[in-house]
């Protein structure tokens, strides 16, 4: 069997300077299920975006079915026979399954009218041919995610895709739906299709894939037959690297638990448990690091802790106080600061000034305003300028708009605001994502100082280096559950964490 797709020396650099793919070369053999695994930021999503025409590489060549090709956009990729099922399903909710399936390739009568008979025929035939039973006349909004995903896959198949890319397909499925999906994928293979399967769940990779390519830091580590490796070896390749960070000095004073979470569960809108029975506590003077690949419930957990989302069941305590139903304002008044995961969406108002961004949590307090009525801009400017200096924010003035700042400096504004609110507890989610090394160092030092001052820090990061560098204790989250706890982390390495993060191991095994 030849290679249906060959990527040679793909280099991709994003406008912000990040090199997401560093001379990546992968051969995808025809008629296989080929898994691509890697942590967040490993470069696998970028690579697939390039294959599907959503991004263009700076360097490198793509060979499809032996011929060199230039994939300009998704339509081009589709025409070549490449199909992609994204993590966020792209279906029109009020159209039926059949309508979504033939969108863009509608069979017509007299060139204008939808040939309903033909549509039914085509969709039924495809459905039967590939063994994907879907309720053709039901609206997407009435279907479960598992069925919707099947529609997406069928959609791709109906456009004669020979190569199908699935991006983290099981992240939204129940175990039963996953089983059904895997059977379908195996059937597709027998139909002559080739499947690329992006995942971080190694058990599944072992179950379904023929080959696996491990990526790390934008590079390909190796490509092997799956039966040559076991999960631990794969995990090792995914996370293992020489230690190039220095752990921060140990904390001196650990106090009482400030943040306690009991039996927290969250049923998402898709009727899946994004969080199942979460229990942990964070004490004063310690950093509790949460290791885990993005999308395993961390986002929901952080939003619940900060009042932006309501849990389905369970309780959250600050000290003795139950804050489970508190609003964001009330939680902030309990002296909880939040460095959000998505800084542009939640952390800042782009078009506002630095000052206006800094005061969002304190504008009504003494000094910033008189009697919670009139803003004292003089004090606000003074305070903002002090923060700009203290946090080394590179900005023309405190009245500059956020837009004019670089990503790292924007994050510094966020961190400056949150840390200067005199918190007892800090909830930090991906605080150094997408920023330069210098700013990252600064933020790490600030968190360390906060910890030394007796603040309890709940720290979520998909970057293992960071988690190991800063944490006092570590918990690992996978599939909405805490699957490991490490109270003593002096000798813990990425290798220890990897298997838990990737679902290979679970606490107690």
């Amino acid at each position: 069997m030849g290679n249906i797709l060959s990527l040679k020396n793909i280099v991709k650099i994003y406008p912000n300077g990040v090199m997401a793919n560093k001379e990546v070369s992968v051969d995808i053999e025809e008629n296989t299920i080929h898994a691509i695994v890697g942590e967040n930021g490993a470069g696998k999503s970028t690579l697939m975006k390039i294959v599907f025409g959503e991004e263009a590489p700076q360097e490198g060549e793509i060979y499809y079915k032996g011929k060199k090709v230039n994939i300009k956009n998704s339509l081009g990729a589709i025409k070549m026979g490449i199909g992609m099922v994204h993590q966020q399903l792209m279906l029109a909710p009020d159209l039926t399954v059949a309508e979504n399936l033939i969108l863009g390739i509608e069979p017509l009568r007299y060139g204008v009218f939808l040939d309903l008979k033909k549509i039914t025929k085509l969709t039924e035939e495809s459905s039967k041919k590939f063994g994907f039973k879907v309720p053709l006349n039901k609206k997407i909004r009435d279907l479960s995610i598992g069925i919707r995903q099947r529609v997406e896959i069928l959609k791709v198949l109906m456009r004669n895709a020979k190569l199908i890319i699935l991006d983290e397909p099981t992240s939204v499925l129940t175990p039963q739906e996953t089983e059904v999906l895997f059977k379908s994928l195996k059937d597709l293979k027998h139909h002559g299709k080739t499947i690329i399967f992006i995942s971080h769940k190694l058990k599944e990779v072992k179950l379904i894939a023929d080959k696996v390519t491990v990526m790390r830091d934008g590079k390909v580590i190796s490509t092997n037959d799956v039966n040559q490796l076991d999960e631990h070896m794969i995990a090792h390749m995914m996370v293992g690297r020489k230690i190039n960070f220095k752990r921060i000095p140990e904390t001196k004073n650990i106090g009482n638990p400030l943040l306690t979470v009991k039996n927290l569960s969250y049923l998402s809108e898709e009727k899946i448990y994004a969080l199942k029975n979460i229990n942990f506590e964070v004490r004063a003077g310690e950093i509790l690091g949460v290791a885990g690949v993005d999308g395993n419930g961390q986002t929901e957990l952080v939003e619940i802790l900060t009042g932006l989302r309501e849990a389905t069941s369970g309780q959250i305590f600050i000290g003795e106080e139950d804050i489970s139903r508190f609003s964001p304002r009330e939680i902030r008044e309990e002296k909880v600061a939040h460095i959000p995961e998505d800084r542009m969406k939640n952390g800042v108002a782009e078009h506002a000034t630095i000052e206006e961004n800094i005061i969002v949590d304190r504008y009504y307090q003494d000094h910033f305003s008189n009697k919670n009525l009139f803003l004292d801009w003089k004090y606000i400017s003074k305070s903002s300028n002090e923060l700009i200096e203290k946090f080394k924010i590179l900005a023309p003035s405190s009245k500059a708009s956020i837009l004019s700042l670089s990503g790292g400096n924007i994050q510094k504004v966020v961190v400056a605001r949150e840390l200067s609110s005199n918190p007892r507890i800090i909830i930090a989610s991906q605080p150094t994502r997408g920023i330069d090394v210098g700013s990252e160092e600064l933020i790490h030092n600030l968190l360390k100082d906060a910890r030394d001052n007796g603040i309890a820090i709940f720290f979520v990061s998909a970057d293992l280096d960071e988690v190991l560098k800063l944490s006092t204790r570590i918990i690992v989250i996978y599939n909405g559950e805490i699957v490991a706890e490490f109270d003593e982390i002096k000798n813990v390495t990425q290798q220890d964490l990897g298997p838990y993060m990737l679902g290979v191991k679970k606490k107690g095994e």
Partner: protein
Amino acid sequence: MSPLLKSILSPQFVFAIIRVTTPLLFAAIGVAISALSGSINIGLEGIMLVSAFFGVIISGFTGSLLLALIGGILVGIGMGALLGYFHLKLKADIIIAAIALNMFASGITVFFLYIFAHDKGTSSSITSLVFPSLQIPIIKEIPILGEIISGHNVLTYFALISVALFYYLTYKTSLGLRIRAVGQNPDAAESVGVNINRIKLYSLLLSGFFGSLGGLYLSMGYVSWFSRDMTAGRGFIAIAAAALGGNFPLGTFLGALFFGIVNAIAIYISPLNIPSEFIHSLPYFVTVVALAIYSIRLSRRKKILSEKEEI
């Protein structure tokens, strides 16, 4: 009360309802089509106005009904194109751009009215042609029903046909399918290679087409002249009618009909002491209530697929 009741239940009244509903129906279809694509056109007021004006002028100066029809339609589609250009190409906010176009239409029509007809109020100095009324043979002989159905302006019949056209377009053509897809989830459309901007442009052009017919009816069917701001808010009522009907063909028709009924009642009821204002305000009030109920229902049913914000 009795004579009033008699007149309300008379075939003439139903006839009047259909007559009054005609321009509203055209405009409402125009709004609904644009709304389905996700870029709602609230400029039907202006579109109807310019079409009404140009129809009269062209027919007055060329003596050709056909030219007036074509001209009026082209002008309406042109306004839709203009809106499309400013919104899709120049990234103008579609609501504000439509408001601007409404203002523009109001001004330019009176402006040209003065230039051509030397009058700032009406075009009475120009003899405009009108679209003919049709008596349908056989049907017109049927008692009661005949009086209701036969004898309407040809554009009225076309308005009713337009509901069917709207239905067929939306549900039975590929364009309609794509319009709905773009409106529901632009990503879904893009992922299969559908050009979002082009589809939105088409829906705006269609919007202009239907709106133009509503305007032509006003000045060359309902009455036979153009007078300033003669659309009198029908373009905005159309938004309510379409909203009441969920932008579906049947719903839009019923919504327009509702407003038509109310308008007709108001005309008939004026002799009485019941304030016509109450009757006139009823459809708007009902729309507010209906929309509120609709939103409550919507917010209860959690949105599953879309994580995007809505206006």
